């Protein structure tokens, strides 16, 4: 890896503004070994031979030189003749028919004897019979066995080197384009025989020197330039008085990837920072809660649609939990049934403890606010709290729906707080989040009055986007939890939208796709 980077492997073509001298000084030793040998259409193999480097090294050097515009690479398709297994054997020991002739005498010999003397397989021997008879080199007579006698023509043939033999004597592989007509004839004849030669197509790289390359070739570079600075050089001081090979510092390098926090976590840290800057303390709590905390304590009527199976995840086992202190449960049940204790009319009907015991995956972080208020003492006020966490809704997964989402929530418990303060806090919070322009409009939530829906103006996309709810907790929520009606300002924007927007994600499932390639390449949260 390190070696490759030294070699400028991905240099951009032609962007070098260096002089031939500077280029020459920046050449990698491999490039230096190859460049002098490149001329007009130099074949790769000859460059390998001339530079006396490995094929792979020459290949790399050529690529780098081409990237620098010193040479041009081309690829030619060529056909080569290669030796087969029999071909290699015959090249060493001669063609069977020649060996056959060489053991023949004037007296007839049986084929078996000939084969044995010439060390031919039976099959080879019988192939020779056909071939040699065709050339009138032998006479065949049939006695007890098949016998053979050499003719005069055969004797002449024995002394002469055949075209095929000449061909086999060549150095393989042989480029077919270099063959003379009689060699082509021999090739055709040998191709018909078993496993002697084959013709294969081969891509052949060629390199041609460019004008710039010629200039660089002409430069004399001192052989004293140093390549990598090494421990040895630093120890013995041998670097002194020498210059270093010049690098192309503008070259592209292969990308590396490091360890990283998940981008959603980075965004969560950022949201936390905003709350902490504003003096809020973090709330924590379980993801599974009884409906009492998730709904009843927040004055959500027991027949409210959000408490139905299609909206909220219920736990199969343990399906129910236990309720908090009788005092709190009585206060909440009373508020629901008659509103007594809060000068409210309540929701009417009968409040069911069993309904309140049902375990659910929390549907909002507001459950944390309820739990926090239940523990808060008057001496601790005014107080500000925040939470950032996962909430759940019973939805099938698709590009715009997730069953898990991040919500952030803040409350201000302050006996002197009013609606104008809520608007002030919202302005401050969203300005810190990067959205100084906000607008509010009336909304409805069971646990707040006034209720607010908030839009922020996106400074980059130049449009209003819906951001989430806010409000002042209703007395029906606050009185059972705190014991008296103290204003509690609350806002709970979901902030997955900010993350999607920042990363340009359109399919919400991509937040948790955990594609390692994506995570490795992901931009840091920069806000």
């Amino acid at each position: 890896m390190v070696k490759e980077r030294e070699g400028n492997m991905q240099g951009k073509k032609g962007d070098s503004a260096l002089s031939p001298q500077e280029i020459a000084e920046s050449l990698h030793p491999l490039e230096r070994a190859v460049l002098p040998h490149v001329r007009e259409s130099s074949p790769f193999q000859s460059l390998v031979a001339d530079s006396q480097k490995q094929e792979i090294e020459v290949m790399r050097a050529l690529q780098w030189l081409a990237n620098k515009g010193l040479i041009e690479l081309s690829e030619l398709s060529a056909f080569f003749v290669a030796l087969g297994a029999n071909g290699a054997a015959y090249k060493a020991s001669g063609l069977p028919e020649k060996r056959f002739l060489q053991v023949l005498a004037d007296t007839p010999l049986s084929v078996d004897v000939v084969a044995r003397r010439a060390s031919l397989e039976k099959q080879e021997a019988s192939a020779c019979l056909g071939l040699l008879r065709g050339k009138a080199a032998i006479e065949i007579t049939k006695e007890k066995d098949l016998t053979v006698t050499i003719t005069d023509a055969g004797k002449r043939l024995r002394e002469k080197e055949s075209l095929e033999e000449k061909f086999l004597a060549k150095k393989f592989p042989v480029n077919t384009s270099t063959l003379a007509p009689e060699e082509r004839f021999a090739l055709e004849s040998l191709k018909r025989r078993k496993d002697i030669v084959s013709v294969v197509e081969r891509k052949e790289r060629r390199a041609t020197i460019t004008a710039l390359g010629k200039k660089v070739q002409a430069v004399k570079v001192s052989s004293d330039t140093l390549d990598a600075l090494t421990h040895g050089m630093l120890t013995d001081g041998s670097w002194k008085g020498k210059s270093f090979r010049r690098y192309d510092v503008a070259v592209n390098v292969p990308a590396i990837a490091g360890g990283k926090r998940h981008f959603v976590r980075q965004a969560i840290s950022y949201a936390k920072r905003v709350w902490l800057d504003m003096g809020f303390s973090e709330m924590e709590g379980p993801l599974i809660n009884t409906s009492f905390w998730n709904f009843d304590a927040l004055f959500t009527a027991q027949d409210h649609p959000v408490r139905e199976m299609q909206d909220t995840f219920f736990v199969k086992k343990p399906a129910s939990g236990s309720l908090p202190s009788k005092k709190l449960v009585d206060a909440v049940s009373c508020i629901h049934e008659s509103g007594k204790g809060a000068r409210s009319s309540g929701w009417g009907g009968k409040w069911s403890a069993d309904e309140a015991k049902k375990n659910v995956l929390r549907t909002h972080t507001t459950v944390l606010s309820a739990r926090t208020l239940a523990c808060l003492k008057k001496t601790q006020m005014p107080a500000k709290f925040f939470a950032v966490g996962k909430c759940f809704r019973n939805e099938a997964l698709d590009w715009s729906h997730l069953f898990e989402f991040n919500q952030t929530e803040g409350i201000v418990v302050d006996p002197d707080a009013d609606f104008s303060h809520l608007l002030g806090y919202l302005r401050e919070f969203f300005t810190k989040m990067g959205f100084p322009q906000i607008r509010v409009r009336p909304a409805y939530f069971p646990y707040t009055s006034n209720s607010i829906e908030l839009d922020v103006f996106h400074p980059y996309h130049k449009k209003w986007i819906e951001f989430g709810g806010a409000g002042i907790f209703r007395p029906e929520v606050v009185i059972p939890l705190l014991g008296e009606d103290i204003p509690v300002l609350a806002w709970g924007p979901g902030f997955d939208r900010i993350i999607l927007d920042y990363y340009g994600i359109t399919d919400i499932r991509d937040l948790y796709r955990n594609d390692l390639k994506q995570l490795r390449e992901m931009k840091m949260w920069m806000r």
Partner: protein
Amino acid sequence: MPTITLNRKVFENLVGRRLPDEKLKDRISMLGTDIESVSEREIVVEVFPNRPDMLSEQGFARAFSSFIGEKSGLRPYTAKKSDYEVIIEKGVDAVRPWTACAVVKGISFDGEKIKEVIQIQEKLHVTYGRNRKKVAIGVYPLEKIAFPVRFVGEDPKKVSFQPLEFPKEITGLQVLSQHPAGREYGHLLEGKDRFPFFIDSAGKVLSMPPIINSHDVGKITESSSEVFIECSGFDYDVLHRCLCIIVTALADMGGEIYSVAVKKDGKALLSPDLSPHKHAIALDAVNKRLGLSLKETELKKHLAAMGIGYEKGHALVPCYRADVLHEVDLIEAVAIAYGYDKFEENIPSVATIASESPFAVFVARIANILVGLGLLEVMTYHLASVGMQQEKMCSDIPLVALANAESLEYNTCRAWMIPCLLDVLQKNKLHEYPQHIFDCGTCFMPAKKSEDSDTGVVEHDRLAVALCSENADYTAIRQVLDYVLRTIGVGYAIRPVEHPSFIAGRVGRVTVAGKDVAYIGEIHPEVLAHFELKFPVAAFELNMSTLFGDVILHYPEAIFSSLFSIT
């Protein structure tokens, strides 16, 4: 939230003024309704659930006209006296004990008006009526009914009638299985000994609420001009309010409302009572909650803009309004009329000290140590499949399953993190190796007897680290754990254990200060095969909640001196 479609022409006639689109959108939105779309012909809005009175064109226009100052203030509605009587009999007590009824005359029902009435009825059924459970509404042509009408509970096998749009007469019980409305709403009556019926004095069945009207008495047509309306359910106040919403909308269409005497247990209620109810509102409370300094006249004006009257410390809330439970709702109405966009924004100078959760800080520290080692953090869902958590891991770890998951892939809360990481590795099979990842998240276990939890579930945050590459082995993962714990000054011991998800003899239990905090080892090839992984995985899973809560917090020394080490 219910969406309603308003005919713009009808709406504008009712409002009494036409507004340009932009102004219209702005005002609708600032009144507290979500606008979906506005065209020349239609306005589509989402009405918040606290305003069922705005689910009709008439009700919406009434609120809007008031808000823009065209016709503001409390609208007077009156019901004329009549002789109509509805008697609620004892037999219906156990199944659907109450009804509120009215008669409306003088409307010429054309197709458009019938459509409007049906829309109001349907929207109220779905929202305020909680899918007919809380309120079921019936509308009948008056001329077909012989008063007094009785509301009775009868054996459903013994009462037969022809349900609406059904070819023949069947029993009440058969309606549940044979009629489409019976199949949809049958669960509201299923298993009851007696079903509720409205029956007139001629013995004709009007309807079997909350399921279906009868075919001959239960259908208004273009020849109808007088209707009988009933709302049945459990809470008279709720039913009465629903009735008021309908009859005032019909009055705005030009109808005249007549009251009906509803008799139960010998007592008679005059239904509907259209007088507003008085609700105390103190000017001080308004100004304190809103941070304003309004005068009484302004208070009166703002309430009027919201259709609410005012009289010396009291608001007069129309009978059809369901949104006023408490004085704060009146204050909210004042704020809406004042204009959310007109409030000043103040930040009081209240000093509070910020604090981040020490546990969250701890987790972030560890994560940063792992990032320093070049590990990549992933984030996996809290929900997983039972198969992934148990079978694929060759484990029988106890799970907290969900009762109503939409998909089999996410039908349980996860109990541990390593399966989640293996799942991530499986999805990344084609990407570059080595893959070194971690994730810290909440895991769920049924609480043991000794554990304190109000839900019966114990939640712990667990950190899992997985190394997946040709060279991932015990030494490699042990080095990571060792580095993490050394870096935070925590000494540990490891003892060999058996764990079905790991290779036998290559899995250890990690203890810190006598507490079991982690498993560490090489994942069993059978498990790897289940996740289709072709490279070895070495992993550990560290219980961060235990490490922090049961160990680190018990050694405050560790936080004050780097020389102190927990062992």
